[in-house]
């Protein structure tokens, strides 16, 4: 008997694990570690996303899916581009009513996934978080129960267990044992909470490498269903310690959203069928080299 490898093409991973109407979790945060190669594949396959959940701060990972018209509703703590501006598709589709927004906050994003990761039926919040408008805007996901020890009312959030999570990390072996070399964001709880997990990586490494680096922050292969090998697969967002975000491309994206988003999708999503094709379209080796050129710690 031999051990089963989990490395597969983005197309196969998406067609196998992303079902129409699913609750989808996407990892990364702001313009960092968004699993864009797999997300572009979801758009190519026109998978309908029933619900989208993200780290407390989503970026193009959410905005692009929304702009492609694939998202029915989003759990929204924040969708934006930080110093580069607001999220155009998110704004447009939510203001028009095409996208249903379940308003939430960072506490919801973190604790709903943590509750899901721990198989808790719900997750209480620290006192004080009831003082905002958010729970009133989303009475389906925020409710009060009694503290059984004091009898006081305590605001709680629903636990979330996405049907499938799509997360990017730096390295994994063929069995899905993965090493995160930068910030972890909420990716770890998202992986634990989700039924199926697709990890896209910069590099597939030998198992021996993982065994020698098990002191690093990592994820066990037993939670991972597919490993997708896509160097530069976070572009136009950053992959910590590999390359920074492509500010020029992100600005082009933001402009395209306002002017002609279908053209953007044609050029960058529907056109290039593979990761290699995509990398050529965005500027090839020259662009890649530029994004990698900078001092990084350790």
């Amino acid at each position, binding site marked *: 008997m031999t051990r089963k490898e989990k490395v597969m093409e983005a197309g196969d991973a998406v067609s196998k694990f992303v079902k129409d109407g699913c609750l989808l979790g996407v990892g990364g*945060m*702001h*313009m*960092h570690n968004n699993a864009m190669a797999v997300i572009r594949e979801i758009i190519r396959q026109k998978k309908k996303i029933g619900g989208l959940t993200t*780290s*407390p*701060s989503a970026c193009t990972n959410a905005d692009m899916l929304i702009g492609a018209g694939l998202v029915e509703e989003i759990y*929204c*703590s*924040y*969708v*934006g581009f*930080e*110093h580069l501006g*607001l*999220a155009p598709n*998110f*704004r447009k589709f*939510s*203001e028009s009513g095409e996208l249903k*927004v379940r*308003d*939430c*906050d*960072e*506490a919801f994003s*973190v*604790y709903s996934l*943590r509750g899901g990761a721990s198989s808790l039926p719900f997750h209480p919040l*620290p*006192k*004080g*978080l009831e*003082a*905002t*408008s*958010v729970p*009133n*805007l989303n009475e389906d996901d925020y409710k009060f129960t009694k503290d059984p020890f004091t009898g006081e009312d305590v605001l709680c959030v629903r636990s979330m267990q996405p049907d499938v999570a799509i997360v990017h990390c730096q390295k994994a072996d063929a069995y899905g044992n993965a090493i995160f070399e*930068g*910030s*972890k*964001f*909420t990716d*770890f*709880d998202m992986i634990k909470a989700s039924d199926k997990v697709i990890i896209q990586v910069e590099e597939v490494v030998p198992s021996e490498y993982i065994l020698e680096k098990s002191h690093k922050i990592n994820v066990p292969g037993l939670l991972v269903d597919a490993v997708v090998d896509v160097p530069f697969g976070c572009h136009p967002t*950053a992959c*910590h*310690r590999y390359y*920074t*975000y492509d500010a020029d491309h992100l600005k082009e994206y933001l402009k395209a959203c306002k002017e002609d988003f279908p053209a953007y999708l044609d050029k960058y999503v529907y056109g290039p069928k593979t990761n290699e094709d995509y990398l050529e379209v965005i500027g090839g080796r020259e662009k890649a080299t530029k994004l990698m050129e*900078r*001092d*990084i*710690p*350790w």
Partner: protein
Amino acid sequence: MVEVTVGERMAAAMARHLKDGEVVIMGAFSALPMLASRLAQLTHAPNVSFICGGSGAINPTLEPLPESSCDDRLLRAECIYALPDVIDLEARPEIDVFFAGGLQIDAKGNCNLVGIGKPGEIKFRGPGSVGLPFLSRAGRYIIYTMAHNTRNFVPEVDFISGPGFVDGELLSNGPSLVVTPLGVMDFEDKKMRLKSTHPGVSVEMVKENTGFDLIVPDNVGETPAPTDDELTIMRRLDPSGAARDSIR
């Protein structure tokens, strides 16, 4: 030395508001708060600790200062916490100062990032509330904005993302300072009060650009300029001017 920029003046005002030993936290779009916190550490407050939101970096070295709050250049730090650990910290009494902002800010220091409109009829969607609800548990908080006009300084926010001096008991001490491109404000009896204006800005200009009645004391001074020392440090940390020149 070249002229002091508005960003430098704002960063210095925020830095000086931090006391030695305090723990400070900030979220997205925080180049100025990062600069201010590091400046405080390198001047009067070596025991300040600061946490850079989503990156989880605690006391990063910040040379050079990145623009994104999750940049991997922040990882040269004293600790990198996972975000859920940062959230745990946000709720802990260790946090003395939060940096906050909003699409709308009102006289009581409430901040709104949800949007403009009414429940069910939001006509302008903001990015979302992110960590602002934790202001309810902060020691105190500093509001900073990149613009100051009657659209963002409003009589009453449409939605509360970060609670200011709301009715009822607060776990936090509420907002303590507001720093904008026009001046610096603090609070008197839970209402915003003008403290100083930046050079070239009159009291009248601030009043015209504020959508509510600001408390204006008799003597409103000029926001102090950074010292040469402070300027040297800020220009070293932010050689490209990404934060320092961010306001025009």
